């Protein structure tokens, strides 16, 4: 449908809230056999606008949230924690969700990530194991289309990746000698990005603007699954902001949503799937408080919104006295998980990344300088060409002090309190950032790099992965959802999100979100 008729669907069996990868995959899995409606707060973007969005990505006058029409009023939020959290750089609202903007690296969590407390002595164990998710991971890789190759540090897998990996970059080849001398292994990054054509999506053609927009569609985004769900009969309603879940003691009865014309609607369904991401999902549960559930819905544990986690970035880079060929593509081709499995109570798991786009690109330098003509040419020639850098992602532990709550002093255009991301980071994560920096310094020094920048414990920032806020647990007292992703409290309400991760690991979360969504879809199908 065009998205203009935003009235509820009669006799819906499944109402999915959120059209990112979690909601998209579930809608796609269920649409053939059930009446499915998907509600998303953001707009449906016209695929033919992507080059215009690419221009916004390149031009300095646009901020990242502008690329996908971020709306400061709709997306208002607070960040009352010790650490500022830039929420609107960390998500996109609209059909496709945050994958419209994402980078698209997709790794499976390692086996110990599911057993952090027993294997590493910190965090909490998941109530499920890697083995429980393994077949869902394989299915998720097929759904997204992942180009990758196995390596010795990854958890066991039974079949090859759906696509061959991207070749290492020239920049990787510079790192390779130094890493070999230091006995540090480099291996390919699994990318949700086509190294060859995949289904009806083209191979990557190297626009280089993957994050925040891929004009060719070679980078996976969740419009793939939302479109497919629609073609199977699902109804997708955009600009439908769900502000409350009506319920009785045991069940959600309706999702109440607002549309741009100012109308309020109630979508009834047999089953509700909350897939609004790791911040908006707990917010919606808290907004749905009632006499029955004064602390918010699905919150008899009191843990809705608790244990907010992200991954921390650590990085370093500088200049080499030879060409490094950065900024040809916008994705990474090599990484290192060698130190990941050494994690313990003192040092968190972390992975290392080898950049292909360190330093400014010529076009950005041209658009932001005070010069033109030959002076500009001289400046760009002097500054482009020799940058080289590394990144790392580090796990943070779940702690009570880090949470998503409501800010009752500020409301969105519909009068609902905005989310407050109260973010703090534990000392183990900060120590691990130092450890990652040490290894980065060792590699860059071996390579002969003059180090010019570092992101360490004092200036680290988040990787935009929202985890922990609707934790999965066996015991209803310890979490919000059961291992089958249904909320403990409500019989017809499921959550598919990185919010269910009890401990986060240090892998980008979306492949695990996709695996969990597929698992949830199976359970929902059974329940229906």
């Amino acid at each position, binding site marked *: 449908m065009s998205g203009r008729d935003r009235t509820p669907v009669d006799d819906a069996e499944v109402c999915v809230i959120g059209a990112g990868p979690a909601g998209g995959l579930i809608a796609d899995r269920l649409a053939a056999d059930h009446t499915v409606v998907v509600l998303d707060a953001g707009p449906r973007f016209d695929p033919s606008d992507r*080059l*215009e969005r*690419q*221009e916004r990505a*390149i*031009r*300095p*006058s646009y901020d990242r949230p502008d690329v996908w029409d971020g709306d400061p009023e709709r997306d208002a939020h607070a960040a009352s924690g010790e650490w500022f959290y830039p929420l609107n750089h960390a998500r996109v609202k609209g059909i496709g969700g945050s994958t419209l903007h994402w980078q698209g690296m997709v790794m499976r969590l390692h086996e110990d990530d599911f057993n952090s407390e027993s294997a590493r002595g910190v965090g909490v164990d998941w109530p499920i194991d890697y083995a429980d998710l393994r077949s869902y991971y394989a299915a998720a890789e097929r759904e997204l289309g992942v180009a990758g190759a196995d390596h010795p540090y990854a958890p066991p897998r039974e079949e090859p990746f759906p696509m061959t990996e*991207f*070749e*290492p*970059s*020239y920049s990787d*080849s510079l790192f390779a000698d130094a890493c070999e001398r230091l006995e540090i292994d480099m291996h390919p990054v699994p990318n949700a990005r086509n*190294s060859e054509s995949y289904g009806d999506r083209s*191979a*990557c*053609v*190297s*626009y*280089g*603007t993957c994050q925040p927009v891929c*004009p*060719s569609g070679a980078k996976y985004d969740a419009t793939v699954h939302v479109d497919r769900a629609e073609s199977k009969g699902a109804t997708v309603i955009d600009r439908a902001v769900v502000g409350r879940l009506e319920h009785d003691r045991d069940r959600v009865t309706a999702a109440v949503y607002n549309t741009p014309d100012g109308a309020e609607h109630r979508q009834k369904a047999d089953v509700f799937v909350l897939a609004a991401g790791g911040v908006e999902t707990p917010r919606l549960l808290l907004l749905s408080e009632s006499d029955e559930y004064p602390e918010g819905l699905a919150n008899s544990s009191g843990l809705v919104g608790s244990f907010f986690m992200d991954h921390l970035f650590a990085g370093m880079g500088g200049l080499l006295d*030879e*060409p490094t*060929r950065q*900024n*040809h*593509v*916008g994705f990474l*081709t090599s990484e290192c998980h060698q130190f990941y499995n050494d994690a313990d109570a003192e040092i968190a798991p972390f992975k290392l990344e080898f950049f*292909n786009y360190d330093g400014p*690109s*010529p*076009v*950005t330098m*041209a*658009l*932001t300088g*005070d*010069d*033109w*003509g*030959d002076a*500009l*040419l001289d400046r*760009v*020639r002097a500054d*482009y*060409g020799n940058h080289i850098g590394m990144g790392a992602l580090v796990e943070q532990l779940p702690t009570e002090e880090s949470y998503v709550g409501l800010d009752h002093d500020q409301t969105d255009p519909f009068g609902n309190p905005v989310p407050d991301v109260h973010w703090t980071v534990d000392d183990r994560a900060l120590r691990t950032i130092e450890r990652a920096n040490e290894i980065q310094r060792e590699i860059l020094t071996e390579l002969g790099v003059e180090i010019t920048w570092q992101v360490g414990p004092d200036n680290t920032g988040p990787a935009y992965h929202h985890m922990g806020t609707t934790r999965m647990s066996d015991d209803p007292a310890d979490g919000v959802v059961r291992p089958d992703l249904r909320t403990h409290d409500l019989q017809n309400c499921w959550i598919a999100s990185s919010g269910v991760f009890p401990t986060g690991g240090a892998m980008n979360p979306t492949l695990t979100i996709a695996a969990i969504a597929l698992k949830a879809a199976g359970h929902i199908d059974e329940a229906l």
Partner: protein
Amino acid sequence: MQLTRRDATAALAALGATGGIAYGARHFTSDDETDADDTDANTDASDDTQSSEGDDHLRSTLVAVAGVLYPNEVEGIEGFVNTFLDGRLDDSPHAEGVRSAIQTLDEHAEAWYNVKIVDMESETIDGLLREIGADTADEDPNGPTAERIRYYVVNELLLALFTSPTGGELVGIENPIGHAGGLGSYTQGPGGGQ
């Protein structure tokens, strides 16, 4: 370095006029055209002169400004800019912004120098752009004059150059950001080897 029609269509393809490949044959003589693969795309576009007379003045003005903004070693500016503008000067708000920024620039030229930009020496155009403040301004399509000129004129032209393969090559990147140059280049070393 010679800018070709392929460069202009590549810049258009990067910036949102994907029909670009059919544009621009009339702006290049066959001498300009260094990319042999592209020549057959020339044939059916020879009469697509869409611009009004007003736009002709606009085009000449932008060509003159590009002569100042682009490094001296860049050749083929007129054909490149005109082909780029074929794809950009439609009835979009962006094109209107370009038209109005050029009008403002011309008004300043006439007020301060008594001539239109097309009749100015390069050094005078350079001076005019600096006096307006377009060199130090941050681009902003809705900002004051300097920021609008920076957005719609200076950065419009720099964007076209530096998202094109030849513009990239000038600074050592034959597959610049915004250009869909294929998966070959990122694995190659500086000499073209692996």
